[in-house]
């Protein structure tokens, strides 16, 4: 149980921030009745606008991180910053746009003009983290400001201390350029000086310029499409329909929250390995979830305080959307729903979060806060753990719940100038076992959902050679349903290479098994595994140099099992043995299943052994 003192409910309700916009709604239009057919038509149209915005962005963007990893978000928001629709691109971006709007409203409210384009990336004023640039275009109907078209996208480089990832930095200025609510277009005219400053201070000016132009085009398209919709149906009808869709999404989520008994649900304390500087000093995560009627309050009090490095999480731009993701995914699982529940302000309304100021989940300016994905991805896992005893059919066993990101860079051998190459690798995780289903192996987990780079592409582009990319050799976490298996990857460096990374190997706190399932398996980074002295490395590296011929082996976390392994279908255990996930002795040890290689499964012996084991408990 958590060692944190429980925040009294009333205090929590008052202190917690809604993941939605809340009550500061300005309506300078009239709410009208919208018939159900028009409602469908407008709902479809707004969804199509967000989809079209995203499509334009990843087709027009220059960098692979936007084009292929689809590390972007795009949508339409009203004047109050309520989301009407958002593209279904990557979870980390879903739901962060309202915080960007809130950020720029501090400075610009009431001053928007047609043709304005606003750039914002300040993580202490709504940005998810500094590399996630937000572009915002105000939408006008005739001369009236009626909303915003906005998108976020991950920039390849924003001028931080090191290329790629660097956790061990002193403050936010070491993490790159900060742009707070700046008009890069004022009434249609580009602020060339600002534009030049933005390109002159980054390592990848062409990619950034290309990506920003794509983001601007994306927002302008969204603004145009939304204005067309308003012209066709009228402001009152469109906005009323939008509110009805928000109410619908809210209703769908509230119905499910109401079905959970009121009370406090506490996750076991989780531990992060370190902050990337003080290795060995673990950081605690405390998670309590309070269900009160149709609302959910997530209390992160008691979690570690803010850290000296960049390993902090921006609260509004990262923590809030993540909490919302966790609840929404648990209660409105897309794979189980007959209908799509749209991504809009409604799904945020019932979910609230409290993290004390000065904690790792609510750091104070000017703490660094770029490397937040590792901690963020633990939150949905913690919330699943909290609900585990009471919602056994909906939760998962412990997930890998981290993200392993590595950036490799080096000097271009064949280049006349002193340019260098950078290769970014976001490694996969694994899902905890589910009720009735094994966990997913070697796949992006929870808030992450990107594609890997083909090995053949990396080898054609960089002086690195892949020696292995497979599932881990050790058996998956046992359970009635087994945990997802992590991957293992080995790179041989053909030239000297610098590596920056962020991650968490979960060495001390592996993914938790549930209902008798076994815990997951930690990951590790190992230098020269076949050499005379293999060297274990921490998950977070800041500008570490490797020599030509060095081999780096990255073993990713395997997730946990669900339920008693003695209850696993013996045929499934046999299949796991045949597929090479387990040996026959391991099947006997972990599952009480007797497999005799020539004759196969010995069911009578299995039943006898399982009876004996069960009796022995």
């Amino acid at each position: 149980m958590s060692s944190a003192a429980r925040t009294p409910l009333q205090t929590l309700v008052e202190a917690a921030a809604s993941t939605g916009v809340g009550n500061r709604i300005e309506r300078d239009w009239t709410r009208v009745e919208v018939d159900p057919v028009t409602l469908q038509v407008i709902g479809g149209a707004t969804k199509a606008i967000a989809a079209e915005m995203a499509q334009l962005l990843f087709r027009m963007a220059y960098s692979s991180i936007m084009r292929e990893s689809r590390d972007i978000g795009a949508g339409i928001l009203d004047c109050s910053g309520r989301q009407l629709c958002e593209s279904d691109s990557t979870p980390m971006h879903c739901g962060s746009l309202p915080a960007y709007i809130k950020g720029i409203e501090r400075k610009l409210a009431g001053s928007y003009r047609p043709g304005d384009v606003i750039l914002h990336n300040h993580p202490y004023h709504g940005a998810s983290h500094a590399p996630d640039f937000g572009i915002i275009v105000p939408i006008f109907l005739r001369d009236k400001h009626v909303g915003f078209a906005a998108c976020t996208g991950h920039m390849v480089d924003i001028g931080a201390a090191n290329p790629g990832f660097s956790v061990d930095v002193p403050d936010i200025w070491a993490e790159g350029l900060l742009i707070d609510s700046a008009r890069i277009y004022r009434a249609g005219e580009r602020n060339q000086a600002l534009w030049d400053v933005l390109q002159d201070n980054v390592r990848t000016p062409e990619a950034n310029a290309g990506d920003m132009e794509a983001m601007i085009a994306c927002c302008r398209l969204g603004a145009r499409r939304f204005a067309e919709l308003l012209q066709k149906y009228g402001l009152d009808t469109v906005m009323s329909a939008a509110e009805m869709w928000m109410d619908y999404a809210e209703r769908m989520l509230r119905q499910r929250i109401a079905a959970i008994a009121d009370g406090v649900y506490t996750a076991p304390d989780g531990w992060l390995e370190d902050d990337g500087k003080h290795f060995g000093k673990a950081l605690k995560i405390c998670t309590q979830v309070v269900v009160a009627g149709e609302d959910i309050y997530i209390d992160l009090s008691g979690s570690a305080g803010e850290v000296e490095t960049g390993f902090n999480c921006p609260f509004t731009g990262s923590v809030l959307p993540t909490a919302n993701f966790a609840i929404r995914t648990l209660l409105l699982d897309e794979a189980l729903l007959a209908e799509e529940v749209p991504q809009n302000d409604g799904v945020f309304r019932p979910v609230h979060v409290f993290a004390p100021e000065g904690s790792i989940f609510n750091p104070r300016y000017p703490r660094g806060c770029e490397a937040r994905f590792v901690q963020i991805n633990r939150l949905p896992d913690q919330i699943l753990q909290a609900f585990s005893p009471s919602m056994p059919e909906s939760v998962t066993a412990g997930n890998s719940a981290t993200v392993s990101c590595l950036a490799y860079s080096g000097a271009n051998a064949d280049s006349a100038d002193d340019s260098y190459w950078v290769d970014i690798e976001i490694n996969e995780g694994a899902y905890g076992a589910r009720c009735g289903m094994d966990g997913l192996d070697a796949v992006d987990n929870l808030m992450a959902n990107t594609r890997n780079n083909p090995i053949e592409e990396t080898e054609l582009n960089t002086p690195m050679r892949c020696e292995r990319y497979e599932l881990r050799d050790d058996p998956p976490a046992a359970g009635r349903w087994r945990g997802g298996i992590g991957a293992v990857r080995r790179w041989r460096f053909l030239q000297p290479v610098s590596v920056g990374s962020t991650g968490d190997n979960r060495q001390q706190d592996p993914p938790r098994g549930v209902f008798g399932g076994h815990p997951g398996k930690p990951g590790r980074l190992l230098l020269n595994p076949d050499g005379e002295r293999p060297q274990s490395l921490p998950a977070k590296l800041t500008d570490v140099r490797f020599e030509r011929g060095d081999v780096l082996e990255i073993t990713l976390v395997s997730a946990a099992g669900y339920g008693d392994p003695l209850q696993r279908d013996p045929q499934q255990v046999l299949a796991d043995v045949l597929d090479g996930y387990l040996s026959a002795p391991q099947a006997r040890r972990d599952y009480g299943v007797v497999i005799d290689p020539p004759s196969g499964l010995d069911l009578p012996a299995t039943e006898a052994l399982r009876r004996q084991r069960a009796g022995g408990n």
Partner: protein
Amino acid sequence: MKRVGIDIGGTFTDFFFWDDETRSMTTLKVPSTPEDPSIAGAEGLQQLCRQAGIKAEEIGLLLHGTTVATNIVVQHKGARVGLITTRGFRDILHIGRKNRPLNFSNYQSLSRQSRPIVKRRHRLAVAERISAAGDILQPLEVEEVRTAVRTLKAQGVEAIAVCGLFAFVNPAHELAIKAIIDAEFPGAYVTMSHEVVPLYREYERFSTTALNAYVGPQTATYLQNFATRLEAAGFSAELHLMSSSGGAVSSERARQNPVSLLLSGPVGALVAGIEVGREIGCPSVITLDVGGTSADIGVAPRGELRMKHLLDTRVGDYDAMVPMVDIDTIGAGGGSVAYIDQGGMFRVGPHSAGAKPGPACYGHGGERATVTDAIACLGWFRPQALRNSGLELQPQLAEAAIEEQIAGPLQLSRQQAADGIYRVITTHMVEAIRVNSVAKGYDPREFALLAFGGAGAAFAVEVGRQLHVQRVVIPRHPGVGAASGLLNTDMKYEFMATVWQDLSRVDGAALQRAYRNLSGQARDSLRSDGFADGDIQLLWKADCRYRGQGYELTVEAPAGATDADWAAAVSEAFHRAHEQLYLRRFEDKAVHLINIRVIGVGQMPRLKFATAGAGDSSPQAALVARQNAYFRRGDSVGVFDTPFYCRQRLKSGNRIHGPAIVEQADTTTVITPEATAVVDELGNLNIGFDGGAA
């Protein structure tokens, strides 16, 4: 020449006979025989010949569209496949690109893991490694291969996929592995990654190769059965097959490369549409092919087939790196169900009542209100409309379903509810088309929208009005469009290679060799089909991208010297294509040429239809009934005294003002109040809006 197009779908097998000399045609629709589709294929063909009064041996060409390969994948009924791969990379197929299809789901499954094409026990790794430059870093361990083959044989696999890293640069190890399989396991269906798709990207190449092995043995058996039946019935023409790239290939090529047949089903209608567009002088076409459960949407600017982006070329959940015509399929059809969801929201589709029990008005026990029921409620179908399919519609069942499930809960009149269902489903279609046209930079006002399938003509006019297309066209036989499209399909053989060069400093000699090599392969394929060299067209293509980008665009490349001028021309073509699709060009960025392709084309004659009988502007002679039907005009739904016409009796020059219904055996055309239809010389219905008839 006398030619036949045979399109075999899950429910019906369609035939389209054409005689180039007499310009006469015969069509036939028979029920399919899913247990062995070649039964209906061969028997129907004989029936068609009797109907057309010709002998089997007179037929010079048989073109076949089949869903056999697609169904094997979708129904997961393929061969037991083994895979031999590079040590260290056993799980490439299992990991894939490591992403998951759904963002907000903890309970999704991944087919590549839960229902793999190749189980892990059948994926065996052997010591071998080739570098990116094609050098052998680790020689092949021959004994390991032999052991692996014996293991797979003992496991009972029927097909083996051979997939080595960088085999597209140097295939020596894959060839050596195949030789060992041939020796140890004669009779196994063997397929090598460098042959199926000699391009970089290991996951996609391995997946494509595994799919090829998965569908290979059964596709080969099917083609053999069909050939045997045809031979027994006296047909001497060789069977050619429609491929997913929109060209026809020989049976032999289809046997070796069955993965190229995947998702070829919907291509026929788009090809037919392109030809209609050419006839009517509007080459840019959008095709809307609607059946009971889904709508296939094709967009062909200037009559050109567009290929799907590599990220989208998959069958079900399995990835295949083969050229596929860009056709979007959405869950919107006559059987789409209308309902009120748990949150009180009114919904139409994507769930479908399917063919059985089907819509309520079919009277086959279907209880849920569907789009077809809405149409029946609006009075657009007379009960005998589907009599040809052995169906007597029962509008009262449709009315009851809509009243109870939609109109009652929403407090609407029955007709308002039915109109609502129709509006929502047409909106879905409009949005899907917009995403595939407007959103990609095409202006719908330059396009004609063509209806295909049994149900396309019921929606096309309304969809076209909302899209602001130039006009809507209902071809003569929308229901057998795919079969007629087959006869407008050229023979096409595509060969490709990864070359990876910077266009600012190309190795012209190496490129020339590579293009020549591919050209030779394409030419040989067409020669085997009996094309003389003079009739063979070789198209050179180049897959390019800006340095640092992850995906390519395919552009045309001049066939000839591959020098600096050539590279500049290809660069410019790429900049242009990039600008068309992505709205911008990056002039200062290096352009990399990643893959090259050569497409050998053997052109086939087009169908040239005889002109329809001419008449005056009045369609009175074709009038079969007049009855009340409901249409939306402006903001309200009203009742109109509506004429029903018989399509066969319409003459060219006839002009029909909406609202009106045109009936024919294979479809019903709904002409809404704002629209006017004119019958053109070839019998197509050309429909324009607000008096501006085409």
